[in-house]
């Protein structure tokens, strides 16, 4: 898994690629929580377009990020979910609690939770 931070109009877009599994979810969690809790970024956008696989530990990291963003009064947004990632989100019945958009244009222009 690789994760790269991209500044965008005062926010941060995190481009994630590869597999978010037991071996790699701690790294994603660290970057995500760092953006939210330490850098106090008001809007963190996760680009999951190049994620091939996500397991329950990856989902748990996203949930932790979402809770942290709510605590901080900021927003965590996801976009570009593949069929595999969508399936796992649906299995966990968490897709409704996240702000999820199809593409980056929609994600950056979004005003609030759908």
């Amino acid at each position, binding site marked *: 898994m690789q994760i790269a931070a991209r500044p965008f109009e005062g926010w941060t877009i995190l481009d994630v690629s590869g*597999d978010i*599994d*037991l*071996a790699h979810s701690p790294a994603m969690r660290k970057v995500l929580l760092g953006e939210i809790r330490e850098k106090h970024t008001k809007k963190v956008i996760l680009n999951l377009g190049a994620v091939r*696989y996500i*397991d*329950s*530990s990856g*989902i*748990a*990291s996203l*949930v*932790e990020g979402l*809770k942290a963003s709510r605590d901080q009064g900021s927003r965590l947004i996801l976009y570009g979910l593949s069929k*595999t990632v969508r*399936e*796992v989100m649906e*299995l*966990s*019945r*968490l897709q409704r*609690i996240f702000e999820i958009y199809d593409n980056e244009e929609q994600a950056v222009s979004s005003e609030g939770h759908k």
Partner: protein
Amino acid sequence: MIVRGKAKKQKITKSAMTRLGSGASDFLLKLELESNPEALCLVRATIERATETLHFEPAETRAIVRAVDEALANVVRHAYKGQRGQPIQLTCRRLRSADNEALVKGIEIILQDSGVALDPAKLKGRPLDEIRPGGLGLHFMRQSMDKVEFSRSQGQNQLRLVKYLAPAKPEKTQGD
């Protein structure tokens, strides 16, 4: 990781159940792993190919891969409490129809480890309406497989996962 596989030349036709020549082995593969998270991606790739050879549909293949991955992650995290280098054995075989032994009806995957015994209370999973990290792995396994059976014998945990091939869809004929 040691991969031991047995390949036999056999004609496989795509149908509701995979038809094999008589005398074909049910054994597909055996993996001897260590409890290192980095091994999971290798197992996912191996299981994906194994299920494809039995002609599972792509969604079913993803489900089986997901269940095996979550099962292994549970062994690493809970049975071995994150300790690396501990032994895990994965065995994979075809399941045959009771009515016609030439037909394969599914796949059986057995995981064995020597970690601590699992707490039966934790095997119930957690309610999904609780929005909190963790506790989803078992739910994913049960949603993905037809059978998820835990047992413990002679100091070893055993998990049996079974997935059956979906019934064949009626073939379309002209005029449909």
